[in-house]
């Protein structure tokens, strides 16, 4: 340690000054001898002298004692000398401390100049500009009024570096909208009934629909392969769903929302562990849950049975809760960051995008998980530069001497805590697949049938009225 050095530097001076001290010593001793019998309050002990020795200067300009008492005179001089010595030692110490601090600062600055506490940017890659453009557009979007179709298309198109044709996409959506409306007319469903619109949308996803003019639509299928988009991120996209007629729990609910917007139906996105689904209010005010990956009506108890929903998750409304417009916009920011990270990687731009998502929806579980990943990556990046091996406890302690690194660690820690507090628990892939499959079991099938008939019953009654 730096402080230990200070002590050692002082010692060499001792030898030099001892010679000069002898007169003082003798003088002092004499005092003792002559006045030894007189009871004086405090007799200077030999140790006192020794302490005084090291850096003592005999200064000629000592003010003589007016009483002329040699003993007092000696005592006083020694005291003054001591004071001077102490002052000088202190001065020296201060000087040394200053130098040491300067040195430490210099070292720290030198180190800091070479350590990056933020993730390296991918901004120099040409394709990232499309993401930055969409980010700007999202920032200009009114959280209460936006087009799901447009925003989602832009986000997917950024991944394809603006190579997709928006007009073509619009045309497909318009056609489907017209197809559904036509079918509703054929069935004589009320054109303003939210139940009817959602029921038709549900059928469009899950049944074969045929119009009198011969046009036909087959149900979408669930794509088991790489359903999380780990190998190929475009598996998550609506454009992929439309092109292949197969999709998963991200693309299917999104297409549902786009089509709901197209035919003016009211429907909402909701989350469950690793999953998203659709909720809509029927004309009666009752809420229905649609599981698009299986093309079935589901129930809260089915969702809860996954076994990975903690009560805290419901208290914080991270699952099974219809997203508001604001929260949906937040989800688009998260999707944008997700595509960017999949295509390029974690950097500070992705952190900024997620920051926006959390601003709009602080409890969003997906945004919070993404932020945790970014924070963890940043931490890893920093400790790698500091050459710290986190698996060894002594090594971990080294991080304490880097205040900025401690800050990075703290941020990551806080984020993990937040996720725990929100009631999140990790659901393994296998458990997720089992849960999705369990819907094909008898109980859920019955529930689906009952709900379907119930809804259909409502609409048939309406038809009679009409």
């Amino acid at each position, binding site marked *: 340690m730096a402080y230990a050095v200070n002590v050692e530097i002082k010692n060499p001076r001792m030898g030099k000054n001892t010679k000069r001290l002898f007169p003082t010593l003798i003088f002092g001793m004499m005092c003792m001898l002559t006045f030894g019998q007189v009871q004086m309050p405090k007799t200077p002990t030999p140790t006192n002298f020794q302490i005084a020795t090291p850096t003592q200067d005999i200064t000629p300009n000592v003010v003589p004692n007016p009483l002329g008492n040699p003993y007092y005179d000696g005592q006083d001089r020694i005291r003054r000398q001591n004071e001077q010595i102490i002052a000088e030692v202190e001065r020296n110490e201060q000087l040394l401390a200053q130098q040491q601090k300067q040195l430490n600062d210099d070292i720290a600055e030198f180190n800091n100049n070479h350590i990056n506490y933020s993730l390296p940017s991918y901004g120099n890659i040409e394709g990232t500009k499309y993401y930055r453009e969409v980010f700007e557009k999202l920032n200009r979007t009114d959280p209460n009024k936006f087009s799901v179709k447009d925003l989602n298309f832009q986000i997917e198109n950024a991944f394809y570096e603006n190579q997709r044709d928006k007009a073509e996409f619009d045309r497909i959506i318009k056609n489907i909208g017209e197809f559904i409306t036509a079918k509703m007319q054929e069935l004589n469903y009320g054109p303003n009934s939210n139940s009817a619109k959602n029921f038709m949308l549900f059928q469009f996803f899950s049944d074969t629909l045929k119009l009198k003019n011969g046009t036909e639509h087959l149900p979408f299928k669930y794509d088991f392969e790489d359903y999380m988009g780990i190998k190929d991120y475009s598996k998550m996209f609506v454009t992929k769903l439309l092109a292949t007629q197969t999709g998963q729990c991200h693309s299917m609910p999104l297409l549902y929302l786009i089509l709901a917007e197209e035919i003016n139906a009211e429907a909402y996105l909701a989350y469950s562990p690793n999953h998203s689904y659709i909720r809509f209010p029927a004309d009666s005010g009752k809420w229905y849950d649609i599981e698009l990956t299986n093309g079935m009506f589901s129930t*809260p108890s089915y969702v*809860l*049975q996954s*076994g990975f*929903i*903690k*009560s*805290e998750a419901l*208290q914080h409304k991270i699952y099974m809760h219809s997203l508001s417009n604001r929260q949906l916009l937040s989800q688009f920011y998260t999707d944008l960051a997700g595509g960017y990270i999949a295509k390029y990687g974690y950097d500070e731009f992705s952190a900024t995008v997620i920051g926006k998502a959390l601003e709009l929806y602080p409890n969003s579980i997906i945004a919070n998980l993404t932020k945790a990943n970014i924070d963890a990556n940043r931490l890893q990046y920093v400790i790698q530069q500091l050459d710290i091996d986190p698996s060894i406890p002594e090594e971990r302690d080294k991080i304490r001497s880097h205040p900025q690194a401690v800050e990075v660690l703290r941020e990551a820690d806080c984020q993990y805590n937040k996720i725990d507090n929100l*009631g999140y628990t990790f659901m393994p892939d296998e458990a997720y697949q089992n849960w999705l499959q369990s819907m094909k079991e008898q109980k859920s099938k019955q529930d689906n049938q009952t709900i379907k008939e119930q809804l259909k019953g409502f609409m048939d009654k309406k038809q009679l009225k009409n």
Partner: protein
Amino acid sequence: MKKYLIYCILFFSCFCTTAQKQEKLFEQSYALLDSMLEDKTAFNFKKAVFSTENAYLNGKLDTRALNKNIAFYTNLAKSIVASKTLVYGEKDRETVNKWFSIFQVMCDTVPFYLKERQYISKPFGYDFTDVFGHQSKESLFVSKLLTNHKGNCRSLPYLYKILAEELGVDANLALAPNHVYIKHKSERHGWYNTELTSGIFPIDAWIMASGFVHVDAITNGVYMKALDNKESIALLLVDLANNYNAIYPENDGTFVLKCAETAIKAYPHFGTALILRAETHKKQIEEEKDNQVASKRFTLLEKEYQHIHEIGYRNMPEQMYLNWLVSLKTERNKYENKNLNTINKK
């Protein structure tokens, strides 16, 4: 004759004073709970529980013997902590060790040595007779659990919380329909449940799948919320009111309403307290002679019930409750928290 009359008067006055004395005990217990809510008295769950039980037992609670009993279990838990049986290395291991030791004391057979002789502490059992305290409120008491060594979903978690308090760690009570259990949050597992009636750590789906918990009830914290100390006092206030109703079935509802209101103030979405308040109001309306006043109050009562329904509270039939409670044993594999392998019994 005169003598007889005097005896008579003396006898009745005696009766009056004892009755008044018990009523005073209820008032005292209420005052204690209320002052803990107002932070005028330091929170002490043991004191709070025993005050409600003592009021019901008309001052006959042997606190000395109970304290001795509790001290024994606390010491037993401490010696388990000292023996370091748990494999758990996170920052909060000291606390988790204590929780685990309480669980062992309550749900496991624990051998121990006293003056070089081996003894065995047996786990607390579940008492299937009078689960809801219909015959006697005493069935629900911690004092009864400590003497009989058999308890139910009220006395077991209460004792757990008392032992935790003695060991200087937190324990959160949590509610399910007709049920109380324990919740903890650890570094490794996040929030997890401890179920004392069957000695298992169940996942939340066990309660969610009971079919009597509406999603709204969970979202609003009616059920499955980790209750803080003040909310736990609210539980005791409702117990106190129920005990009062059992002793004085013909009361005018003033004391009961006072308890319910204070409980609701401390824990606004407390289903049982809301129900108790509504039912007491209903009883009062039935007694009301003025028809106009009665119909006015009835409209208010309807609103009360509507509010209870809206926050997601549903009543669970008693037989259903028992089936559900047993389901934890029969379907253990489905509902056991697999993450707690370090603690789970083999």
